[in-house]
């Protein structure tokens, strides 16, 4: 109890502590003077006598202070009270220089805070285990295709069933698919919802039971089973107020009334956070072995390793290849942990940022080390006296370290505030598909990290100045300051600071250049003024039986009427429908070209297929290069089947032949090539344009599609018009996936933008800290050399010469730092390689820019101290000593 009180007093009562000795002695003098006055002395005489009687006041104070601070060599005292005293002393000396202390705390708060923020994201997204029991046993399964070079494809339903029934490594398996569904209710506009179709086993595999009701039964997971639905936690909360009465009521989804049989627990985010509902997978609905539209997750048997899983999958895949050569030739299967498939893609970006922010903290530490070493030098006299009074070197180092720890922990506390703000900014900037973003918070792990970081930082920035300070000797510091003690340390800090900043700025430069390249990459299409809206026609009212395809009359009637009404409306320059929007890769299909040599079944090439209505190329601004555009005539039921192909298709398959008039067979339908269109990007701006064919939509209709409208009106007005038009034709349809093409381009580069923005911010922070640090270190050097510079000036050096002298030293050190930084940057450049697009990892332009930026920063930061040096008054400096 008493110890605690002492600690508290030492920590919080520093003002009392500071003047304790002074007060006590002042009281002594006053009381003594009072006694003298009583004996008849005058006020002044009494004071003088009291003072004289006391003797060397300063010496007594010093001795007392020393007794408070420095552990005596004999008569050991408990370490705790020594620490308290030194803590007190540290606080006192920090309070004496509030400006410097504030700069140190701010620097640390920024450095540690930025690290804490990034770490809290890393912890929530990467480090925390998935929220399922024994998450390490969960794996995601993929297929690949050796013949077409694909590495990661979904499963087909029959493949899933075969693996499920034949394997010996999985305890249980589940299949699922992402879908959207339209929810209609009496009170509201129809709404499109993200949903997952899941096999009944999905709760067993994940090990999570519904919080209300039950999971699907096996008989519900088949075609024609009873119509049921399970709610996701968010939908349950927002639409049903989380009341249990929701169970047993019905939802109308895509025109089908389904009974709510269960609710998943709060925090359940499988397979993605936006899944509002779960529907039975309804096995059989898309059961073709060649249709790879489902995802598979499995729980591995206890003790089975991933290698064994993959060996088993390879064996099963070979069996399927032999059994079904038409569909499965060249197909393999493999698994990765669910963790990997969930967060794998965000991993390298976050780790890069974690590394970058570590550099920022290093720069911050170097900065603080510089400030502290300059204070240590300023206190050289004090230290020398303590040393002369018998304080050991260890005692002096310890004193300095305790001060560093105090600073660091105070900085750490401030850092928590900084990190809270920074984390909000990070999450606002982060791509919307960052997995598990809702996990990010300041929890115990993050706090421990901050604490550890503060401790490490204190050691990094505290040890150097402590050693420097402890080496101070009487001769050096009680004598004059010629030769500027601590010069080597100061120079090393300055060089190190620049070098670290250069590495970060170089990385930022590469990422910025790469990003600029990326966004200036020509997507092929013209994005401005185009609004895209997703639509889905329910099978209940728009029959879509596969045997009748492509003669889906109701679907085609809706699409024709929609385009007719929109084209007639004022303001719309053009409108079209397409199976996917630009930049949405869509899917591929096998095809053959008439008259070419036969290819063994299962080994045909694949091509991107994008079914579009005739207005598509005009709407997205893709010029027809040869032949003709698709026209309304091609839409007529009896029209001959035609396609347009892209440049990449011609380059691959018709190098020196005439593409126009050639006939392409795909999906058992043979179509004639009537035109060649300019390339458009299919998957992201960074990827090469694949060969693609564009059948006309009526000849390849789909019930789920996008409507694209080009108009000079605002997107909001266009959207209103689309909503009115769709509502007039079918009031029960909902619009989904609303975005302009510009927004889609922007979303496609969200991840590199995030990485670049945050990295660039860190680089700027590091450069700013380095500039402040250089300024501080050079000011300190000039301060310590005042006398020398004064002598030089009195011997005839002009202000200009002094300016050049100091600037010269700054420039030399900066140049050395930049050189070291460039070497370091070249060393770590390989790390950036996978983040770059169109920029070499050792891009000379970036290197040159970084060197220039660092040099200018170094010079500017040196200029102010140099100018101050050139204005030294030689007479005054010489008189001072």
């Amino acid at each position: 109890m008493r110890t605690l009180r002492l600690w508290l007093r030492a920590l919080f009562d520093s003002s009392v502590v500071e003047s304790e000795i002074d007060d006590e002695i002042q009281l002594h003098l006053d009381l003594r003077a009072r006694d003298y006055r009583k004996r008849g002395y005058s006020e002044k005489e009494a004071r003088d006598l009291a003072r004289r009687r006391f003797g060397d006041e300063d010496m007594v104070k010093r001795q007392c202070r020393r007794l408070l601070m420095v552990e005596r060599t004999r008569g050991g005292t408990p370490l705790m009270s020594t620490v308290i005293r030194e803590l007190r002393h540290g606080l006192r000396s920090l309070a004496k220089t509030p400006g410097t202390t504030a700069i140190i705390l701010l620097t640390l708060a920024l450095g540690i805070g930025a690290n804490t923020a990034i770490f809290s994201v890393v912890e929530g997204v990467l480090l925390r285990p998935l929220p399922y029991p024994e998450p390490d046993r969960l794996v995601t399964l993929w297929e690949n295709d050796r013949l077409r070079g694909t590495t990661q494809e979904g499963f087909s339903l029959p493949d899933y069933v075969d693996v499920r029934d034949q394997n010996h490594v999985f305890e249980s398996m589940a299949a699922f698919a992402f879908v959207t569904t339209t929810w209609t209710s009496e009170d509201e506009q129809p709404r499109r919802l993200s949903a997952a179709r899941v096999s009944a086993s999905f709760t067993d595999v994940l090990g999570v039971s519904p919080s209300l009701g039950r999971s699907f039964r096996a008989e519900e997971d088949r075609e024609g089973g009873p119509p049921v639905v399970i709610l996701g936690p968010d939908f349950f909360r927002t639409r049903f107020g989380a009341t249990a009465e929701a169970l047993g009521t019905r939802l109308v989804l895509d025109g089908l009334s389904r009974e709510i049989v269960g609710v998943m627990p709060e925090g359940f985010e499988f397979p993605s956070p936006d899944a509002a509902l779960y529907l039975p997978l309804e096995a059989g609905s898309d059961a073709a072995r060649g249709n790879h539209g489902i995802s598979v997750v499995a729980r591995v048997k206890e003790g089975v390793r991933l290698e064994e899983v993959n060996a088993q999958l390879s064996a099963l895949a070979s069996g399927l290849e032999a059994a079904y050569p038409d569909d499965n030739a060249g197909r393999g299967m493999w698994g990765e942990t669910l963790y990997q498939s969930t967060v794998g893609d965000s991993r390298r970006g976050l780790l890069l940022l974690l590394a970058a922010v570590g550099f920022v903290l290093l720069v911050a530490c170097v900065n603080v080390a510089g400030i502290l070493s300059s204070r240590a030098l300023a206190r050289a006299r004090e230290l020398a006296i303590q040393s002369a009074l018998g304080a050991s070197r260890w005692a002096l180092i310890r004193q300095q370290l305790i001060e560093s720890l105090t600073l660091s922990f105070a900085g750490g506390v401030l850092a928590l505030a900084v990190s809270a703000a920074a984390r909000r900014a990070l999450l606002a900037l982060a791509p919307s598909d960052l997995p598990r973003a809702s996990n990010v918070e300041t929890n115990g792990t993050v706090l421990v990290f901050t604490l550890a970081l503060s401790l490490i930082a204190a050691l990094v920035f505290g040890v150097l100045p402590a050693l420097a300070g402890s080496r101070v000797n009487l001769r050096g510091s009680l004598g004059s300051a010629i030769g500027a003690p601590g010069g080597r340390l100061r120079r090393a800090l300055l060089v190190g600071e620049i070098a670290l900043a250069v590495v970060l700025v170089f990385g930022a430069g590469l990422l910025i250049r790469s990003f600029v390249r990326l966004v200036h990459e020509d997507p092929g299409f013209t994005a401005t003024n185009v609004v895209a809206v997703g639509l889905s026609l329910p099978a209940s009212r728009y029959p879509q039986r596969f045997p009748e395809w492509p003669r889906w009359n109701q679907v085609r009637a809706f699409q024709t009427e929609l385009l007719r009404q929109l084209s007639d409306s004022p303001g719309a320059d053009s409108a079209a429908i397409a199976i996917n929007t630009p930049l949405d890769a869509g899917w591929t299909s096998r095809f053959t070209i008439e008259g070419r040599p036969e290819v063994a079944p299962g080994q045909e090439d694949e091509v991107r297929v994008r079914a579009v209505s005739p207005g598509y190329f005009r709407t997205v601004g893709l010029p027809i290069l040869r032949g003709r555009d698709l026209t309304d005539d091609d839409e007529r039921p009896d029209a001959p089947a035609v396609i347009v192909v892209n440049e990449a298709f011609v380059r691959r398959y018709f190098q020196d032949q005439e593409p126009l008039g050639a006939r392409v067979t795909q999906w058992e339908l043979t179509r004639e090539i009537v035109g060649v269109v300019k390339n458009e990007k299919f998957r992201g701006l960074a990827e090469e344009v694949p060969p693609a064919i564009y059948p006309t939509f009526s000849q390849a209709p789909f019930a789920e599609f996008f409507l694209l409208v080009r108009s000079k009106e605002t997107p909001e007005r266009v959207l209103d018009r689309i909503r009115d038009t769709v509502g007039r034709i079918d009031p029960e349809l909902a619009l989904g996936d609303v975005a302009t093409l510009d927004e889609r381009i922007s979303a496609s580069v969200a991840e590199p933008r995030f990485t670049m923005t945050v990295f660039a911010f860190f680089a700027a922070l590091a450069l700013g800290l380095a500039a402040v640090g250089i300024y501080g270190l050079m000011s300190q050097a000039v301060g310590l050399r005042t006398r020398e510079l004064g002598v030089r000036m009195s011997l005839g050096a002009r202000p200009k010469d002094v300016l050049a002298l100091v600037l010269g030293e700054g420039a030399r050190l900066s140049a050395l730092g930049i050189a070291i930084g460039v070497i370091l940057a070249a060393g770590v450049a390989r790390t950036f390689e996978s983040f770059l697009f169109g920029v070499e990892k050792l891009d000379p332009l970036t290197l040159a820019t970084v060197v220039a930026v660092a040099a200018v920063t170094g010079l500017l930061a040196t200029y102010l101290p140099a100018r101050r040096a050139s204005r030294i008054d030689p007479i005054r400096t010489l008189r001072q000593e």
Partner: protein
Amino acid sequence: MPLQGSELLHGTLELLVLRLLEAEPLNGYAIGRRIEELTDDALKVDEGSLYPALYRMERRGWLQSSWGTTENNRHAKFYRITRSGRERLHSQRAEWAGFQTAVQKILESP
């Protein structure tokens, strides 16, 4: 016989301080004054020794200090004796008595 504190035998000042504080908590000045009064100014305490001695004794855990107010309402630091201070006083007292007897024996020897 104006003895300066510095001439006090080693350890004697500590003994005197502990003895005075055994009776009541005192501030630094009062300790010095009390010694002077009780010895009719025969012993004068040198402040240069008194305060470091007080700090040293506090460090060793014999004294404990706290801030309070004097009868004249001045803010002052008061020292009080601790349990280990009392033990120290006992042993020092015994030592002093032994020393005194020893000296006495020599002085009274024929």
